[in-house]
């Protein structure tokens, strides 16, 4: 985002700006490109071949410009909100705090300093847990006991991460933390529900329960019958 010329001036005068880089995701690197470009494929520090032609240096300029722009016009999503949302550690801590306040269960999480060692423990069965990383999406940085080629994938991810983040430990782009999340063996996983909320109203609820051949399913009475004994 160049802060000069009529384009910049027009942006500052806009009533509403929608879109921008998805800072919740792996915005610094593309470790596992699939089908060509992915939404994460925005930043390529080696060259300006990415979708927006940004390098690390121009990304910093872009971030500063977003801050200035946010003072002039309403932006959705707020880049700061996205940067916060990408931090799974902070988000999990908040979710856990709120869950505890409501008296509902939550998974135990902990940061990991040696992801490779933890992955070995998970795959060897010594630890019943999931290893995952902040600022990632589509399970690109999620490792379980059953992840194929897990060690090779993790080593590649760590090498990419070191290359992408090493020049900028400080500043607006935090180095992603690796987190381990516990499994609870007394719990049987029935599935996952996805609920869309706009302006505090639940608009739509889907289930991606694997027990059915159709996924996702719209929630209706027949789907709720899968979970007949809800308690809260």
């Amino acid at each position, binding site marked *: 985002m160049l802060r000069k010329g009529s384009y910049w001036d027009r942006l500052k005068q806009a009533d509403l700006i929608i879109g921008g880089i998805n800072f919740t995701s792996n915005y610094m690197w593309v470790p596992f490109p699939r089908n060509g470009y992915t939404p994460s494929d925005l930043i390529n520090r080696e060259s300006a071949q990415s979708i927006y032609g940004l390098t690390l240096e121009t990304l910093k300029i872009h971030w500063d410009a977003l801050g200035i722009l946010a003072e002039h016009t309403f932006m959705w999503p707020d880049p700061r909100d996205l940067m916060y949302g990408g931090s799974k550690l902070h988000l999990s801590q*908040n979710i856990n705090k*709120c869950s505890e306040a*409501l008296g509902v269960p939550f998974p135990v999480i902990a940061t990991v300093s040696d992801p490779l060692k933890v992955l070995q423990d998970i795959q060897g069965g010594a630890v019943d847990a999931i290893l995952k990383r902040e600022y990632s999406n589509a399970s690109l940085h999620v490792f379980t006991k059953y992840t194929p080629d897990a060690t090779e994938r993790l080593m590649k991810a760590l090498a990419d991460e070191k290359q992408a983040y090493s020049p900028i430990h400080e500043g607006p782009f935090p180095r992603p933390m690796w987190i381990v999340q516990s499994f609870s063996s007394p719990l049987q996983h029935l*599935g996952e*529900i996805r609920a869309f909320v*706009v302006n505090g109203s639940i608009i739509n609820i889907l289930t991606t329960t694997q027990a059915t051949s159709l996924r996702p399913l719209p929630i209706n009475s027949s789907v*709720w019958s899968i979970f007949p004994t809800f308690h809260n």
Partner: protein
Amino acid sequence: MGPFEQHRHRPEDIFEIYLLKMLSKLIIEEERTNKFRSGLRIFNRFDVSVFKVRDTGKVVYMMNEITRSHFTGLFQAWDSQGYMDVMFQELERILHLRASQFKKDRGSRIQT
């Protein structure tokens, strides 16, 4: 059996109550921590795991993920009921409302 036991919530009601309670608590906590308005006020997708406790059969929810960006997967291919059209209409409405509020607030700040 007392009269009020006839009005126990259905499973879907209990789930929605859980979601809305979590939403309000998360917004308060985020805004207390971050010192800026939480994007959860406008839009988000909650991913909630459903578990059954083996010993008791009790079913519990666990908040797994919260997606809040314009990159959120909407599963529109399965939206035969047109729910997401309603979502876009509501999103459009709230974005314009927030934009006009922002403009008004900014005008007040400049004047003072």
